[in-house]
């Protein structure tokens, strides 16, 4: 740690500073505004988050890798942090946008306050460079989310959702903390960029404890990203929580955890790390590949029989985590492709999933139902809702011209390049299974008839934006915008290998 330059270090946490200020503003607005004017709280949140999403682009990371590690080595201000922060902030803005007209919490200031705090945690996680910051960031992200999941206190399902999420989350945090403490115990180091060098000697070349620590940490991450076999909390949590919260958990929490996962694995257990004659990377690559296969297969197969759209999306998100893990396993090629494909995948997944959940929010606000069968005739009731849901589902399924096609293509490409062709094959076959249940939902919306189909579903202006923005992004990412965003992700990936 060279000299500490406060002003030069500030840009690295510009979004976090901004989020803190935004949270305070919301707190005040919550007290002063009343009646219909409380709607403005939501708008302030949306605009504030959108504005903050620009900050990582204004204060770009320093080009020199040596000066990227700031705030006493707590935070690393690099392109990977940049791309994930933009993703998370935009995701939070869209979540707030789709919440505006919900009856349950659209006017409640504390909802937006907690959302902003959770976003703060997610931003910290995506830049964390120290074991302490890793844990603090994850808890700052998770604890607000536990509260949000249980936000509808009078609803039993919501309470169950929050409780389950809390129990599993706390358990995962404990496991991860245990793993982190083993690493610290060996080395006396907390900076993840310093660990790799001292680890072989510090552990006395004993490979088992290192693997144990690695496994514990990966299991902890497995819970956070909702990958099988650590996915048990997802379906109940997704179903019970207020839908915008589900949407936020499914994207922001997952994205931030993936950002940290790849950073952590590459920094702490790089290819060069050999303990007691064993290459540690080969171990976690197999672990990631295994989790990828189980997540994809289990998620997709269990999704087949779902009747509730939120549960279907929950299982689908387990499978999606599995696809992204293909990219993590592909890091074994030592090229930027693996991380870059993960970055692009999560970028497009954020918008895709938010689009799908936005449709669910507006549909259930209008009809009070969340079952797939009730989506029947949606094309006649609201052509735009049906079309947007179709775009979202196609993107999840990986069909052009939506973003998902590029996302999957980049992942499979990375896998083949990393000599994991078998994993790519498992991935594409899983994509077919997934497409089956996505198509079923599309079929229900377009083909099936319902008694209510002559009752149109009206959309407010805010709802229109909450659909149009992600919808447009998904289509653009699937065509012309794929190139710049992928290049951006490549830059982010390169940053990790430059450490």
């Amino acid at each position, binding site marked *: 740690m060279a000299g500490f330059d406060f002003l030069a270090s500030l840009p690295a946490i510009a979004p976090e500073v901004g989020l803190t200020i935004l949270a305070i503003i919301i707190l005040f607005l919550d007290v002063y505004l009343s009646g219909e004017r409380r709607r403005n709280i939501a708008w302030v949140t949306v605009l504030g988050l959108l504005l903050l999403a620009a900050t990582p682009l204004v204060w770009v990371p320093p080009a020199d890798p040596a000066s990227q590690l700031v705030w006493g080595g707590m935070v690393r201000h690099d392109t990977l942090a940049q791309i994930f922060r933009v993703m998370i902030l935009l995701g939070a803005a869209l979540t707030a946008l789709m919440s505006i007209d919900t009856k349950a919490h659209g006017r409640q200031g504390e909802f937006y306050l907690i959302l902003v705090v959770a976003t703060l945690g997610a931003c910290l996680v995506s830049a964390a460079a120290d074991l302490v910051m890793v844990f603090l960031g994850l808890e700052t992200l998770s604890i607000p989310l536990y509260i949000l999941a249980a936000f509808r206190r009078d609803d039993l399902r919501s309470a169950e959702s929050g409780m389950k999420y809390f129990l599993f989350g706390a358990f995962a945090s404990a496991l991860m903390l245990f793993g982190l403490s083993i690493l610290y115990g060996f080395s006396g180091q907390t900076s993840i960029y310093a660990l790799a060098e001292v680890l072989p000697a510090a552990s006395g070349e004993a490979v088992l404890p290192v693997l144990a620590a690695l496994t514990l940490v990966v299991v902890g991450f497995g819970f956070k990203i909702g990958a099988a076999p650590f996915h048990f909390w997802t379906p109940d949590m997704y179903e019970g929580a207020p839908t915008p919260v589900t949407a936020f958990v499914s994207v922001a929490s997952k994205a931030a955890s993936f950002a940290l996962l790849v950073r952590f694995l590459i920094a702490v257990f790089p290819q060069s790390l050999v303990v007691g004659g064993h290459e540690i990377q080969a171990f976690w690559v197999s672990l990631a590949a295994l989790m990828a296969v189980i997540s994809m297969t289990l998620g997709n197969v269990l999704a087949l029989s779902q009747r509730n759209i939120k549960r279907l999306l929950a299982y689908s998100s387990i499978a999606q985590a599995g696809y992204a893990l293909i990219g993590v396993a592909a890091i074994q090629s030592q090229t930027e492709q693996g991380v870059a494909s993960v970055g692009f995948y999560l970028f497009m997944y954020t918008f895709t999933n938010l689009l799908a959940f936005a449709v669910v929010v507006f549909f259930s606000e209008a009809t009070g139902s969340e079952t797939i069968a009730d989506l029947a005739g949606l*094309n*006649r009731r609201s*052509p735009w809702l049906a*079309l947007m849901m179709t775009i979202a589902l*196609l993107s999840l399924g990986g*069909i*052009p*011209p939506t973003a998902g*096609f590029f996302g999957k*293509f*980049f992942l*499979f*490409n990375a896998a*083949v*390049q990393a000599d994991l*062709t078998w994993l*790519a*094959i498992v991935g*594409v*076959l899983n*994509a*077919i299974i997934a*497409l*089956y249940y996505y*198509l079923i939902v*599309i*079929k229900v919306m*377009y*083909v099936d008839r319902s008694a209510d189909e002559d009752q149109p579903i009206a959309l407010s202006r805010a709802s229109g934006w909450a659909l149009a923005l992600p919808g447009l992004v998904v289509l653009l990412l699937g065509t012309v915008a*794929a*190139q710049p965003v*992928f*290049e951006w992700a*490549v830059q982010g990936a390169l940053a990790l290998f430059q450490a």
Partner: protein
Amino acid sequence: MSELVLPVLSLIVFIPVVAAVIILFLNGEQRDLVRGVAVAAALAVMLLSLAVYVGYNAQVAEVTVNQDATLASGSPMAATQMFADGLAYEEHYEWVPSLGIGYHVGVDGLSAPMVLLTGMVTLAGVLVSWRIDDRTREFMAFFLLLVAGVFGVFVSLDMFTLFFFYELAIFPMYLLIATWGWVELRQYASMKLTLYILVGSVVALVGVIAMVLVADGFFRTVEGAAVLQQAIAAGIISPASTSFSFDMVNLTLAAEAGAFDVSGYGGVETLTFARLWFPFIFIGFGVLAGIFPFHNWSPDGHVAAPTAVSMIHAGVLMKLGAYAALRAGVQLLPEGAQAHLPWIVFLTLINVVYGAFIAFRQRDFKYVIGFSSVSHMGLVSMGFATMNVIGMTGAGLQMFSHGAMTALFFGCVGMVYDQAHTRDIPSLGGFIKRMPWVGLAFVIGGLTSMGMPGLSGFIAEYPIFTGMWAASEQITLQAGGLVLSNYYSVIVVLAALGIVITAAYVLRVTGQVFLGEFNATLYPDVGDISITDRVVLVLLGAPLLILGVLPGVMAPMITSGVGPVLAILGGA
């Protein structure tokens, strides 16, 4: 290459997309406006594709002369040069340059007829869908999206772009069949069709990624880098080309230089990349061409689909599969083709004969046509398997001929069904008295189907059989200790049986549906067809006659298109 300033091929691909978006923003109640926009777009692409065809036809002679000269020169990259020289109306933009993905489109002698076919069937499809009143807006929008995907595949010169459009076509097709199809079968058939085609294509996608990677490895070697530099110097590939590229010209170059024939692939002594992946890529795409035993989706899919979709599906989409199998399979993995096509030919024989038999057994009018497509598409793959110029040219002609013919058939079936509300063959009869246009069109299609001289079917099927006969001496099949030679002549004799059966079912259907007594009490409302339907029949029937009488308008073009493929097969 082209002096034309207009990006014609991009217009052909994107006019339907733009029209689809415009249609989605229209008021769904204004059905005539929706139809008007759709017809305008379809007419525009039809005319543009005709212009492309005529424009390319004008330069075929020159292309052929150049190709012969290139081949005679004995250059080590002759086939690639022939392929690159044969391209016209090229457009090349970067898409994701870091992964070697470009938007590269163009036509050659193989794809130009397919573009024209798609243009014709598109217009016919929009016209024949005139009476669709249930959500006309969505129907037309999805139909045009489907068409855009089909055009995109035929003009793509980049494997990624090809996949992009290939998958783009699949989803609208699903929704069109599931929503507007035949109530009793549509949900089952549409899902089955979609999953079959997707499984085939995604496995092929992984194969293509692996292929690009192998090519990348080759171009990074000293020898490969020299080849790449030479090709850039000769102006065959773009100067910006990197070793990692999905561009078809680059991959052809790698294939010709033998990058995919290196033995020891995957650690197995006798295995090469081409040998391992050819079946997955060829059959993966071949699923869409209805290759046995993966043809199962096709009759159900065709029967369940609304008329316009059946037309485009059997008429054009099945060719999409055959076309992609030829491009990505035979052209890029010639060594694999030589190793595997000698047994794949048995599958095509089953297609031809078994398809015709099953067609004969059907009571449902539309199933007859559905299985006849399986049978005729078998002839296309069989033409590929000849691996000689006669047979391959025949396969190309058969793609066009069968496309127009089967679209005509499905049009006829749709028109009869619209008025009779049944497709049960025994309960129909005498329809030619009330619907003379349809009857005549069906007879023309039927005669084409059984290969009557003077119609396009003969022009297409005769060369395939001749090609098979000619190939018989060259091709031997070695499996384990078994060596089989001269068996193509046996196959061709058996395949000729398919023609006999085809004649039988065509005559049976014609006799039972169109001839005989008309039952006026059962079908009191059956009358003649509308003017739009007549346009459809003329549009699809005329090419069958023109091509039958004047094969010179297409055969040389296709011969020039298969030239590079054969050069690479010969050189490998």
